[in-house]
């Protein structure tokens, strides 16, 4: 028996795409994945639920209103599956693009509105250093009236620093050290290497600018907050800081073994730029896996395509290479495992193991830790951190404030300024 098909691939793909986009919007709102907000800022259930539901209903209504899609022989099962998978993938991709683009636009408009664009840029000077970069305010205060920040690298972090500086009271200086590999790579570099790098960066700025960075307030932001754990003894010995502030340090979920969820607060573009900075392709394990995979891929694609062409399988030049790709991943996995590769253990597992380790000792410098709202649940899973670093007197919880792109919301620059100012006057 021979089937006759009236293929209607584009309509079916569009149907899957629209319905999947709607479902993704509903689920993003339900999970609070603000990074996937298609209109920038936070996802709002009041918008996302009706929007998602409307997309799903519209997709079904449009597709099944066509008599061609009701009890008429149409596209075959395999093509339906392809349309479904590609439609869902396209919906995910468009959500990612839309979320990233709208947030980039929101940031640009926000900068212009707050005058943080060119004006704020002139207030801080960027210095390129070996192993990192520094932003230093053109004005520098008396000793003890300045803020030294250990910040993440990248333009997004530098823009954040400029915004924070504009929110601080006048008459104070601010130096931001952006360690290029990033403090999230502590596990790979080792704490000693990070100590040396940061000490070197600070010493270089001191030499170039004729500054003495002693008795100032030292703040670690994000991963920089975690780096302060490592650097605090060195800073206390050499620089006698007035106060240490850890703002939004990364709190791992020690029970489940995760360091956090970037979808809560970062756009996919943010995540990709962070990933690009980490350069996972430079890992020795990655290179080794690729060297094993490439010949396996070539062999599997040739073999699978040979079979699909030989047996004249429908869509042979698509299904052959695709099958070859899947087969190559499968074979490579077992080849890599057989050679005893530990890459599967992963960077995140190693990070969690370090961050859930013993609490740092109690230093002599007053310390304040600021947690954002998403860290509260994870904080409860820190069994090893009952020690001095997390005593309630030192904790400040910024409720409703999220890390990532939301750190400047809900009046946090002002709160930060108050915190630093109080830190100074209290010291």
């Amino acid at each position, binding site marked *: *028996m021979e*089937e006759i098909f009236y293929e209607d691939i584009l309509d*079916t793909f569009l*149907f*899957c795409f629209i319905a*999947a986009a709607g*479902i*993704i919007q509903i*689920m*993003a709102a*339900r*999970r609070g994945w603000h990074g996937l907000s298609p209109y920038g800022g936070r996802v709002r259930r009041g918008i996302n639920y009706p929007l998602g539901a409307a997309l*799903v209903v519209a997709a079904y209504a449009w597709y*099944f209103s066509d008599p061609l899609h009701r*009890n008429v*022989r*149409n596209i075959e099962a*395999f093509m*339906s599956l392809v349309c*479904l998978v590609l439609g*869902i993938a396209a919906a995910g991709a468009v959500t990612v693009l839309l979320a990233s683009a709208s947030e980039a636009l929101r940031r640009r408009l926000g*900068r212009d509105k707050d005058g943080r664009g060119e004006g704020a840029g002139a207030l801080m000077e960027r210095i390129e250093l070996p192993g990192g970069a520094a932003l230093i305010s053109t004005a520098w205060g008396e000793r003890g009236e300045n803020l030294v920040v250990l*910040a*993440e690298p*990248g333009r997004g*972090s530098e*823009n*954040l620093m400029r*915004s924070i500086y504009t929110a601080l009271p006048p008459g104070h200086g601010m130096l931001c050290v952006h360690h290029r590999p990033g403090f*999230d790579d502590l596990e790979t570099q080792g704490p000693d290497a990070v100590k040396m790098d940061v000490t070197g960066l600070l010493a270089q700025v001191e030499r170039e600018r004729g500054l003495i960075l002693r008795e100032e307030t030292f703040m670690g932001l*994000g*991963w920089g907050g975690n780096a302060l754990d490592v650097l605090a003894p060195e800073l206390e010995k050499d620089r006698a800081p007035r106060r240490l502030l850890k*703002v939004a340090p*990364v709190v791992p979920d020690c029970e*489940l*073994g*995760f*360091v*956090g*969820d*970037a*979808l809560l607060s*970062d756009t996919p573009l943010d*995540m*990709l730029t*962070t*990933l690009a900075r980490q350069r*996972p392709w430079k890992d020795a394990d990655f290179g080794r896996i690729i060297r094993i995979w490439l010949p396996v891929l070539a062999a599997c694609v040739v073999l699978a395509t040979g079979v699909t062409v030989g047996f004249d399988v429908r869509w042979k030049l698509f299904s052959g290479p695709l099958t070859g790709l899947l087969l190559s*991943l*499968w074979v*490579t*996995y*077992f080849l890599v495992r057989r050679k005893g590769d530990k890459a*599967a253990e*992963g*960077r*995140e597992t190693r990070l969690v193991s370090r961050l859930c380790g013993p609490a740092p000792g109690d230093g002599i410098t007053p310390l304040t830790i600021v947690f954002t709202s998403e860290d509260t649940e994870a904080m409860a899973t820190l069994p090893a951190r009952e020690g001095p670093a997390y005593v309630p007197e030192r904790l400040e919880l910024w409720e409703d404030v999220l890390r*990532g*792109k939301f750190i*400047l919301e809900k009046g946090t620059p002002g709160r930060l300024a108050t915190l630093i100012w109080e830190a100074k006057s209290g010291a």
Partner: protein
Amino acid sequence: MCWLLDLDYTLFTWINGLAGKNAFLDGAMKVFCNDHLVPFTLGFMLVVMALHGRNRKQDRDNLGAVLRVFISIAVASAVLQLAVTLLHRPRPFIDHEVNLLFYYPTDWSFPSNPATATFTFFFSALFSDRRFGWWFLPPALLMSFARIYCGVHYPGDVLAGVLIAAGSAYLVHRVDFLSRPLIAVVNSVESRLRSSLSVRE
């Protein structure tokens, strides 16, 4: 063997005999019999399944479950193709007088394609997630019943599809090494992306 075919036909006549007596029921069965409605709905339910967790641990389990569904479908399709190649059973309307509420499918009747596909969704989802998996059952049941009601499948075709689906899903879940590599790749990408936390503008 003959008595089995007789029993199958008797069951078919009971179910298909209901067609044409109630316009509302006929309309509803035509809707569920549709080639696209139930399979695509089950596909969208997979998206919900992948994203409905409460934390990253559950997300990983759910992503693994969705991958296993697709691998189960691949295995079930292979078994189905084999069965179709070996056994050629004509559609009910070829050999008998039936109440046909559907177009004339021109492929072989045994085993039922839609029953295999929809029940593979169900069994695979159920083996991974005992709670969420049950949501896949009503659409699968309705579609399979509607195919008999509308006169395009015998109950035996549906039963064979269900057995192929259950066997394939069980195999994929039992023989872990079939799905482990793909799940490891997906978990690795998930870990890299979702642990890329940053504090930025």
